[in-house]
């Protein structure tokens, strides 16, 4: 009931924003309304998570004539509802202040509630029809938001690529649900659960759902639209697209692979896990080379999706092998990372938005020294950066730790592919985590530390109270979910119980503050204890040092080995920071080449140091597909200029072919 009314409110807000969009005061009302609706949906999700049973399906008499719309909320959708609306509430609160600075806000505000509506409707859908319609709502609303600033050519390109990929995703999901449909074209999820899929249709369903939802979530190599589209939208929308919409896509994947599809073989789990590993490493390698703050964050989303997908693949493989406890562990780890990533990625995008509204810049090369000028944003961004770098005691580390614990049990599976694949994926995951730390040291160090690299950065002032508040709440959540992870893991064990068939406690036998997923001797972690002891040590260090030594402090110029200069250009830049990594990793993967152009003696033009890189996915995959499509189009084009006789010949040929097929298929 609460959910239905909140969804209705979102639709009404859309209508209101369309009507009143010209009035300045209307935007605040719309965002405030979105905040209220999100909070309502959030509380509905949390409330539902407490229950074990799932509510019955609600049937509403609209949609196609022979098909009524089915809605239902179970633990899985309740959890994702929490994920979506937690970030949505924060983003809405942030947007009240943020949207005042947006030049194109009249084109943003109406579609924002529609976008929220679409995402929530996907979660409560209980038949394929509602699911797909809601999915398209989500896609198209976000597409319009991406295009809100359509004056820029790059945004138009992003919109084009996004639309193509969204169409591709739906194109995959449609036949997927078609294959899943129950007897007599029954498209309800309940009918799908009962259906026995044959071998080939079963495999097709898995392939199609991985492609369809993977293209939305940003699995490599289907990620290409994501770093273009996410940064193009206004920051509060980018936050939701990156932090939340990718999660809705993962919800689709989990729903089909763990719930609707009866049996998924371990081979699929292995394949999905490897895809996740590649996604994680590629995503972070892209991220660490980016100069644009929002694009960096978008690529880092790709990485985190990879981490989640590793967990999902592992859970599928464990489940297929009957290791239900381990499957539950891997799934809990993946879902925990879903929640964590949605929180810190929303926070980081808001930070980037705050920086943009304060300086008008999102290129790292024009920032610097912002921590002193924007202390609140700087502190919140620091928490987000540390959390996404998987540093204890924050939440990112807990989920990475759980994924690693599940991975370390992977070789227990009897298949050679898993025995060899799991260590390799483990190495990928570890590499991705370490590179993520590098990536965010670079982003934070260049943007918030050092000296300002542009006049705009030097003039920056911190943002309004509401924006700071939204970021502070999310930062506090990062700490809370990291220090007291048991609260979430217990709730998650309810979520995974129907999916894996076991009730599973992550803090098995050591009790409350300890995470010990397998057994107490298998390895355990307690952020609560670590934080208490660590804080004591931190305090002891300060007290002891000040007791023994002097407290004197003197402000002076930087030393820098004697050649400190007052020019900010002498600092390390984002590009120079990435150079060792570019040499180590980029030379082969991105074919990074550096060239130096030295002017002739006597020529006063500047010397230039250029970096050339290619994007292997674009160069090898998409351009290849593009060429193939062009060639095919050329071929088809010729059909337009045939003679009448030629057309008749083709029709005749087709007819004969059909007859032959019919003849051949006769018993």
């Amino acid at each position, binding site marked *: 009931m609460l959910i239905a009314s909140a969804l209705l409110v979102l639709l009404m807000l859309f209508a209101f924003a369309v009507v009143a969009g010209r009035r300045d005061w209307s935007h605040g009302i719309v965002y405030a309304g979105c905040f209220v609706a999100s909070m309502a949906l959030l509380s509905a999700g949390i409330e539902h998570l407490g229950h074990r049973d799932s509510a019955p399906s609600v049937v509403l008499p609209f949609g196609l004539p022979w098909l009524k719309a089915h809605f239902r909320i179970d633990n899985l959708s309740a959890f994702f509802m929490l994920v979506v609306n937690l970030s949505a509430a924060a983003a809405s609160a942030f947007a009240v202040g943020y949207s005042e600075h947006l030049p194109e806000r009249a084109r943003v505000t109406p579609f924002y509630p529609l976008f929220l509506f679409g995402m929530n409707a996907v979660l409560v859908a209980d038949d394929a029809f509602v699911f797909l319609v809601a999915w398209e709502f989500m896609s198209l609303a976000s597409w319009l938001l991406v295009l809100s600033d359509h004056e820029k050519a790059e945004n138009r390109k992003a919109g084009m690529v996004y639309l193509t990929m969204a169409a591709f995703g739906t194109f995959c999901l449609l036949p997927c649900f078609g294959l899943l449909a129950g007897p007599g074209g029954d498209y309800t999820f309940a009918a799908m659960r009962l259906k026995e899929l044959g071998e080939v249709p079963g495999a097709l369903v898995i392939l199609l759902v991985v492609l369809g939802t993977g293209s939305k979530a940003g699995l490599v190599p289907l990620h290409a639209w994501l770093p273009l589209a996410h940064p193009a939208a206004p920051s509060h929308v980018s936050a939701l697209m990156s932090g939340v919409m990718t999660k809705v896509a993962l919800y689709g994947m989990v729903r089909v692979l763990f719930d609707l599809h009866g049996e998924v073989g371990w081979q699929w789990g292995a394949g999905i896990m490897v895809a996740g590993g590649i996604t994680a490493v590629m995503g972070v390698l892209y991220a660490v080379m980016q100069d644009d703050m929002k694009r960096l964050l978008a690529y880092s989303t790709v990485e985190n999706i990879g981490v989640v997908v590793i967990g999902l693949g592992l859970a599928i493989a464990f489940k297929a092998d009957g290791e239900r406890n381990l499957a539950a562990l891997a799934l809990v780890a993946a879902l925990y990372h879903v929640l964590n990533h949605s929180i810190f990625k929303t926070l980081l995008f808001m930070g980037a938005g705050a920086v943009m509204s304060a300086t008008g810049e999102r290129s790292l090369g024009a920032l610097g020294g912002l921590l002193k000028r924007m202390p609140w944003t700087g502190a919140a961004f620091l928490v987000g950066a540390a959390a996404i770098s998987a540093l204890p005691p924050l939440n990112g580390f807990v989920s990475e730790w759980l994924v690693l614990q599940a991975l370390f049990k992977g070789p227990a599976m009897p298949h*050679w592919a898993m025995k*060899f694949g799991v260590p390799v994926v483990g190495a990928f995951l570890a590499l991705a985590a370490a590179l993520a730390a590098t990536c965010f040291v670079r982003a934070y160090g260049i943007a918030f530390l050092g000296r300002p690299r542009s006049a705009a950065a030097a003039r920056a002032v911190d943002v309004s109270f509401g924006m700071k508040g939204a970021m502070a709440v999310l930062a506090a959540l990062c700490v809370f979910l990291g220090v007291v992870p048991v609260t979430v893991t217990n709730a998650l064990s309810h979520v995974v119980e129907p999916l894996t068939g076991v009730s599973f406690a992550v803090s098995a036998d050591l009790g409350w503050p300890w995470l010990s997923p397998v057994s107490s001797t298998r390895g355990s972690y307690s952020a609560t204890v670590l934080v208490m002891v660590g804080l004591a040590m931190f305090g002891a260090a300060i007290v002891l040092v000040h007791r023994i030594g002097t407290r004197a402090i003197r402000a002076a110029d930087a030393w820098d080995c004697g050649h400190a200069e007052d020019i900010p250009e002498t600092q390390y830049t984002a590009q120079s920071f990435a150079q060792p990594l570019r*040499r*180590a990793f980029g*030379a*082969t993967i991105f074919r990074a080449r550096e060239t130096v152009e030295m002017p002739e003696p006597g020529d006063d033009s500047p010397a230039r140091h250029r970096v050339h890189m290619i994007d292997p996915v674009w160069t090898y995959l998409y351009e290849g597909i593009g060429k193939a499509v062009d060639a095919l189009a050329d071929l088809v084009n010729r059909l337009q200029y045939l003679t009448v006789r030629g057309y008749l010949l083709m029709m005749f040929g087709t007819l004969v072919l059909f007859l032959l097929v019919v003849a051949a298929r006769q018993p």
Partner: protein
Amino acid sequence: MLQQFSYDLAHLIGATVLMAGFGMLYQRRIFAVLNTFAFQAFALAAAAAWQAHVQHAPHLYATAAIALVFKALLVPFALHWLVERLGIHRTVETALSIGWTMIVGVALVALSILLVLPVTAKAAALTRESLALAMSVVLLGMLMMITRRNAVTQVVGFMALENGLILAAVSAKGMPLVVEISIAFSVLVAMTLFGIFFFRIRERFDTLDLHYLETYRGDRS
């Protein structure tokens, strides 16, 4: 207990041979490659001697001696001398960067484990483990020959491959001495051949880098 120990030690020496194979792939200077090769041959001699002791097969001591004298001492010295004498470029020239070569190397080790294990499921653990190791060494030798441009490193790769064969031979019980001698001789013959080959190349092209036979593409750092 003693059985376990002899098994573990053989295993360890075999792994040392394999690690030396990786060490060769890692090196950037020719002399370092030669030293690593000498070390590998030395480890091989130790493996043969240990097997001789464990299996009570005195002829394996001969194998050990051959490996020690020829491969660990004579051949590296000869190649040292050649490199100095001919003034060959002292850095290893790679066709595939060192990092990627090592990644491929690890993949090859995984492959040989994967191949050997199901085949020898019933064999004694000692045999199958040694076979997996030996096969990895052989494959690494081949990899070395493929990915390193300079002729000297290719010779070394070839001999590393031979080392792998001998490692396989000593760990399988009851292999007659004749084979080892013939292997050892074939190495010597190959050495001589390559030596002559070097001189010929030098006469013709004034360089030993096979790469100069193709177009110049530039070294990657």
